[in-house]
């Protein structure tokens, strides 16, 4: 319906009601949220209904602070691990395991700047900002906005020495559309049997992210850069073995003011050389930020950010070379998970608390005649059918040593549309490992990013991991007629097109608009449309397998394949009850 055009339709009353969760006031990782939509709400519009909740992040005690948010691309959706939809009578209508991984596919491939902004305003995703922008040709990031975040307050552009702690975190209100078949259906939902939602929250080690601008292993050239110890127009180095308690930051990457600087007071930092990858640190303990301020007279009155550390530290690592040095420039990164010279040894366990959980339901008032007619039909023994496009997750693991794998899937749907296979990294990682991306899968090698970019999202997203080719085999036929090569994508600096051609068809059939393929390296998805246009495919009684070959460079990671099969599901609603047809 256009804003200006008018159509003649029957009048339908629309109101929004708020239904609080039933089983608690607040929730934490791993807990379950129950919400019931009572039968009294006879009709509602699922797609305009959404989950409203507040989330607050708490830093781990006895650890250094940093700016944390939820997943940069899916925001609050990362909190939902599994979701089930029942009738009030207990009939299971939908069950989705690995909900957040499915949403990561939806949000990565159905994405553009407008939609990301929309999600940033309402769902707690992060965004780009002109306040922090790269000047060294790095890949653009949507996870650099520490200036305007729903999770914590920003700082002003004045000397800043107040330690960053839990008081700086705020409750973020998030409005999350639920990406289940029923709740993404365009058609109104006849709620004669009531609905009950069960939402299982995700574990802590999956959901948190640091800014890209403080991470050593992702878009390093976007980090602040060491200028000098002297802050002069003839910048000096921090020689290995010498002491200092202050250093200056170059104006690169928009580090022109205290509010632009992505690190916080109390955060541990280290330096890494962009040419040698050598680290600079103190052996005994981490260098911790005490004060951040702009010295207007530095660098011949051009001004520089000066960082004062909480102590005088000896540089026990490599020399930190100054800006413009031929021996390599040095970037600053967050070392909260390191202990002195030891990298990644500290545990780091932030937590989240979810509260004020409500389901905002778009309730509809149908005309009395409409309702009477429906009730009469039901009383006469008729039934109502309600179709919706849903999906189920079939999971299977393969080992890192499996260079050829055959994934068999016992699909049992009469009206399947497509399948999306997401090979996630099943390595068990601590929060510290996820945040720092140490030993994570490297998804691309963009020369301007200096080093390969590592996966920041842990086990949430798919990884190519040197996959060379794949092919589906179903109904005793190989599809397509030849293996689909992914060698160029796995090489991390090129593109194979056929996987994207197949993925596009699969996404369309799954009801996901393929507006973007920019995630093709960082979120590997193998797709196959089982039917085209408005058609369906009957999987029942037919074999189905995915054949994978990792026959080039051996893979590095064990993988959990989340195979989401999108299909039309039917609810048969009668006066006596409801049944589900797959």
């Amino acid at each position, binding site marked *: 319906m256009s804003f200006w055009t008018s159509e003649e339709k029957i009048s339908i009353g629309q109101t929004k009601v708020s239904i609080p969760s039933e089983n608690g006031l607040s929730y934490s990782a791993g807990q379950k949220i129950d919400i019931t939509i009572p039968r009294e709400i006879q009709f509602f519009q699922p797609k305009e209904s959404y989950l409203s909740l507040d989330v607050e992040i708490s830093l781990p005690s006895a650890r250094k602070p940093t700016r944390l948010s939820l997943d940069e691309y899916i925001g609050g959706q990362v909190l939902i691990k599994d979701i089930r939809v029942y009738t009030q009578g207990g009939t299971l209508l939908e069950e989705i395991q690995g909900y957040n991984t499915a949403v990561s596919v939806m949000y990565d491939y159905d994405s553009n700047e407008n939609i990301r902004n929309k999600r940033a305003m309402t769902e707690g995703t992060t965004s780009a900002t002109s306040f922090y922008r790269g000047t060294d040709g790095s890949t653009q990031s949507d996870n650099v906005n520490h200036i305007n975040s729903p999770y914590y307050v920003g700082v002003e552009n004045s000397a800043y020495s107040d330690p960053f702690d839990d008081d700086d975190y705020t409750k973020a209100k998030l409005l999350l559309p639920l990406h289940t078949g029923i709740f993404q259906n365009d*058609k109104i939902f006849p709620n004669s049997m009531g609905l009950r939602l069960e939402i299982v929250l995700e574990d802590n080690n999956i959901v948190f992210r640091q800014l890209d601008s403080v991470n050593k292993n992702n878009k390093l050239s976007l980090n602040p850069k060491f200028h000098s110890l002297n802050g002069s127009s003839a910048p000096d180095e921090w020689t290995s073995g010498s002491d200092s308690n202050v250093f200056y930051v170059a104006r690169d990457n928009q580090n*022109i003011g205290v509010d632009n600087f992505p690190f916080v007071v109390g955060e541990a930092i280290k330096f890494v050389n962009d040419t040698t990858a050598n680290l600079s640190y103190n052996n005994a303990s981490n260098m911790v930020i005490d004060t951040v301020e702009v010295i207007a007279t530095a660098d011949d009155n051009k001004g520089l950010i000066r960082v004062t550390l909480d102590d005088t530290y000896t540089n026990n690592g490599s020399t930190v070379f100054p800006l413009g040095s031929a021996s390599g420039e040095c970037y600053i990164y967050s070392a909260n998970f390191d202990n002195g010279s030891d990298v990644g040894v500290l545990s780091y366990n932030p937590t989240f608390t979810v509260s004020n959980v409500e389901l905002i339901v778009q309730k509809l008032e149908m005309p009395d005649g409409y309702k009477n007619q429906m009730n009469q039909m039901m009383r006469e023994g008729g039934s109502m059918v*309600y179709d919706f496009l849903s999906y189920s997750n079939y999971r299977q693991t393969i080992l890192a040593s499996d260079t050829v794998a055959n994934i068999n899937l016992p699909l049992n749907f009469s009206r399947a549309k497509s399948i999306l296979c997401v090979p996630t990294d099943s390595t068990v990682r601590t929060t510290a490992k996820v945040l720092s991306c140490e030993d994570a899968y490297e998804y691309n090698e963009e020369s301007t990013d200096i080093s390969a970019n590592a996966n920041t999202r842990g086990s949430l997203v798919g990884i190519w991991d040197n996959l060379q080719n794949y092919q589906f085999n179903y109904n005793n036929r190989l599809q397509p007629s030849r293996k689909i090569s992914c060698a160029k994508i796995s090489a991390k600096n*090129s593109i*194979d097109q*056929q996987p994207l*051609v197949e993925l596009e068809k699969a996404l369309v059939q799954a009801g996901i608009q393929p507006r973007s*393929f920019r995630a093709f390296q960082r979120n590997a998805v193998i797709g196959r449309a089982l039917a085209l246009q408005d058609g369906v495919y009957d999987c029942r009684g037919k074999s189905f397998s995915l054949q994978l070959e990792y026959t080039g460079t051996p893979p590095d990671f064990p993988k959990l394949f989340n195979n989401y099969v999108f299909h039309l599901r039917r609810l048969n609603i009668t006066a006596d009850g409801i049944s589900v047809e797959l």
Partner: protein
Amino acid sequence: MSEIVETQEMETTIQGDVKPTQSNVPDLVKIGSIPSNLQIDYDTTVYEPVTKSQSFLRFQIDNKGILHSNSKLTISMTGVTESAFFPFGVGVNSLIERATLKCGGKTLSEIDDWNHYMAYRSMFIAAENNKERESITTARLMSYQLEYNNIKSASTTEIPNTKAQAIAVDTGLYPSVGASNTETLMPDYLLADNAPVFQISLADLFPFLKMNQIPLYMMRDPLFVELTLVGANSKNRLSIQAGETTGQTYNVDLNNVHMIIDHIYYPPEQMEAFAAANQQITLSYHDYNLSKQSLVPSQAKNNIRNVGGAGRIVTKVIHGISNNANDGETQALNNFQAEYPNTGNNTVELNVRYNNSFIYPIDVKNTARLYNLITTAEGMTPFVPRDSYNDEGNSITSNLIYGRQQNAQFKGAMFYQAHRLHKGERVSGKGIDLYTKYDELSGGNYTQRVWLEYLKIATITNGVLDVYNG
């Protein structure tokens, strides 16, 4: 017990009761079965070219099933050692000079200077889609971002947080700020020396397929796709970074050119019944006829030209003037541009005349109006910034893209026009006259390209294809 598959649609009458109606129920109220119980099977066949060379490719498609119009051609370059990339505006479409769809010796669809035509078509892709999607699928990269003053010598008070100074092409990378200039590059995976593979949709090659699907199983003769490629050393395949050696030969990887065709199958009895019931199928569609003329600036100042169309049902006239300079590869858009007069009075005036009357009562001079006329003709807006369209505003940055100033590359470089023929009549024997006044193009030789969109009819009678003008 009766089973009601679909809820009745209802309306409220004046008396307040409700009765069924077909039309006034909002679509989302129509609870019921999604109209999709139709079992569709399809198989994806990967075709190699039956004839291949650096100037010509021919594919033969099997006569099975129904051809899915969004099937794809995939193609890549090989052996590129220079810093080179596909032109920003057309991407991989630069490779194809002519696209022909044939069956049984009859030409269903053929577009000349297809790469130039795609430069016009590419204007209708939203900039967001170019950056997010097209850059990776077809190497088209026309999207924009704000550019800020970030030069290294500027002070903290001079570098603004939000005050931009210009607009620049958005490639997905931040600009690289040097001591005295700023340069934008593109991601490594788009560079030709990494041999990325790109795709071209069959529906883009042959707009006929946007409106029709070909029932291959009903055709007696095989379907051929013939693609004439631009010359390997024509300087029009790729664009190169400043300082790279010009005039190199850039080869298509002939071992890696494929057609990925989806053949759709409905239940056999349905397909047979359809074939039996449709001994003759008539498909109407639009094809494009090219008329070209060489011009020098003085001629372009006042040019009246008959562009053909006599006796045809022509729906649209599309035109633009591009520079013939033999240095296409030194430009980000290559030669796939339509130039706005950037000297003299910097004005344009034009009109179209057919069947004894002009389309516009007064010659059109307002360039923003010309932009809107494209929207009227195409039914969708072109996504071109003002500076690129009519050279106004001076907002494109002078900073670099692959060694060359962006404003020199993109200013006034996408000045296409389109006119919808408004009478709904067949064009008379006199044809269509195009009146253009470009005051004035800068020196050099130009080509004015005019595509006429006209109606064609194809019939398939007992498996034999015939094609004629509408």
